[in-house]
């Protein structure tokens, strides 16, 4: 009976690992696979064709004439290189910022000299009047910072840093600003490259994980073991990183796999606004979005949707903690 239980626990995880391995393998070998068509080239004679039709389009073509199979294969590459890292990085950034905001709240303090340094430098850089005096103020601030860091002088004034308020307001601002204003701001950059798009995706999606981690951290920091760690004399940073944060990222185990679908949709929205992936890069999101023009072409929905759903499920299965099922009373 125990063996069966263990097999039952291993089975979904095994499948999940297998699927993810297939995706990564296909993504790595994509340029070498003997696909009949390139992903971006439209086959003008066979547009929106069902699967197994004439012309060696095994999974059919989308309303633009692109082969579904090669788009799936190269889309796996984009997913592995762009979407999943974007989700992971957004979760990381959100975890760090949300965790810090939840742990320290508005009670953090920095030496006042830092404020003088920053203020003076900014005034000088912007070219305000009396820039020379600003430079002098910045120099005084730099000296004060060094002194505080070395610990030579005690009792220097400190300013409060409302970390929680700043992080929460920034998250709210990022969420509220419409995407198109973002496009206008980015329009100066002529072509957004892959690392640039990664940055845009991460910077647009970190607020959700940040809020989840912050909420959990508010609970975790009140738990006895955190208090004990502080009482033991550990520095605050270490308590935060080693003791509190691993417990505070619990909600992300569920949220991370689910965010991949959202990021794919975000990618295609950005390409509608003109700042997404170049049109010759295949992606599952773009394939799904092309189904809008021909809603009766079920093969353009089904195959990328199935790949995406399987990926999300696999990641969920790996991320969730599977334990022995409790008995129903």
């Amino acid at each position, binding site marked *: 009976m125990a063996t069966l239980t263990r097999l039952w626990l291993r089975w*979904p995880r095994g499948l999940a690992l297998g699927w993810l391995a297939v995706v990564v393998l296909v993504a790595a070998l994509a340029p070498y696979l003997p696909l009949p068509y390139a992903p971006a080239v439209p086959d003008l004679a066979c547009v929106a064709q069902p699967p197994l039709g004439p012309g060696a389009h095994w999974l059919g073509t989308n309303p633009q004439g692109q082969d579904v199979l090669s788009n799936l294969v190269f889309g796996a590459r984009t997913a592995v290189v762009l979407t999943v890292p974007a989700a992971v990085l957004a979760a990381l950034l959100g975890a760090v910022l949300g965790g810090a905001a939840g742990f320290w709240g*508005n*009670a953090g303090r920095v030496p006042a000299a830092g404020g003088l340094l920053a203020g003076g430098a900014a005034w000088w850089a912007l*070219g*305000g*009047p009396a820039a020379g005096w600003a430079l002098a103020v910045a120099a005084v601030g730099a000296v004060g910072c060094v002194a505080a860091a070395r610990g030579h002088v005690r009792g220097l004034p400190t300013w409060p840093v409302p970390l*929680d*308020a700043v992080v*929460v*307001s920034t998250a*709210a*601002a990022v*969420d*509220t*600003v*419409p*995407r*198109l*204003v973002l496009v*206008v*701001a980015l329009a100066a950059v002529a072509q957004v490259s892959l690392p640039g798009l990664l940055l845009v995706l991460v910077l647009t999606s970190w607020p*959700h994980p940040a*809020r*989840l981690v912050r*909420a*959990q951290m*508010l*609970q975790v920091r*009140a738990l006895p073991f955190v208090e004990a760690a502080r009482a033991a004399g550990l520095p605050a940073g270490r308590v935060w990183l080693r003791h509190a944060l691993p417990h505070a990222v*619990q*909600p992300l*185990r*569920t*949220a991370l*796999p*689910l965010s991949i*679908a959202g990021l*794919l*949709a975000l990618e*295609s929205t950005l390409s509608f606004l003109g700042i997404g992936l170049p049109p010759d890069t295949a992606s599952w*999101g773009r394939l*799904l*979005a092309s*189904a*809008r023009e021909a*809603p*009766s072409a079920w093969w353009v*929905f089904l195959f990328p*949707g199935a790949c*995406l*759903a399987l990926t*999300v*499920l696999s990641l*969920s299965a790996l991320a*969730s*903690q599977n*334990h022995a099922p*409790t008995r*129903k*009373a």
Partner: protein
Amino acid sequence: MAARLLIWRVVRTALAVLVLASGLFLLSRADTDTALRLALPNAPDYGGRASASLAQEAAAQTALRQRLGLHLPLFYIGRGVGPASHAVRWQWHGTANQYHLWAGRLLHGDLGTSFRTGAAVAPRLRAALAITLPLTGTAAVLAVVLAFALAQRLAARPRWHAAVRAALAAVQAMPLFMVSLLLLLVFANPEVLAWFPAYGLAQLTATGAAAVGQYLARLVLPIAALTLTALPELTLQLEAALARELRTDYATTARAKGLAESAIIRHHALRNALLPTLTQLVELLPALVAGAVVVEVVFALPGTGRLLAEASAARDYPVLLGGVLLVGAVRSFALLLADLLYFWADPRIRWQP
């Protein structure tokens, strides 16, 4: 003491909203050239009638700029070439600037007039909200109720729990337009099942009870689409948190006492597992006001999502700013509400200003 902290938080939230709106105002005015050009239709886009020379177009743009009040300086201070020296330096513009006028009108409740039509922004937003709020409100309530019920059933690990979780993840993987189109093409299609009307609210010719029936029938499919997309994440997050709570010592004790699993979940584990779900619930509040563009386009409902998307594309900044101000205000107060709810859900959390 708590009341003072609360009031301080409310004041801070209101200030944050104003700062956000001001920032967006200044950012939007950097793009007036495009806004002006889109407000003046030009020949290749409209009719092919004779278009004007460069000088005439420039004159028309200047006249439009004057009429919309965009010729004034932007802010109290700005960079410009000084009259005496020729270096670029900061200048004081006084109170005759766009920001001052805008802020003054805003404090009186006037959100300005649209660039494209000249109509007031506030009534337009109100009309769009009257369409969106019933739709998103009902969908949110339904999604929350269903999520709670489903998560509690799933946490007890019945035999079908893996299948349902897989189905939920599959639904999450579908983009919103796919869900809406599927619902439309299955339930409003004369070829398949014509149970529901295809598009919403175009004309309500009946009166009385029949009108209410027609209104409700038209909202069923959009509400179903919104509920289906909001459901998976709420359910799965709550179910994972409940599963975690069910492995704690107090849950084992309760089981040892002889309580049924569903009773343990409902009376003991739920309150402790609520924290991530509360975050998601209050994140739903700004979405209530912002609407969902895709659902509104597919089902032809003139809500706030569509209004803001069209204003974005046409660079109609007063409408866009009005919408963003509304959504931003709701979001900020939702965050405040979230903090209050955390305090209520887990008394160990110390409420901070």
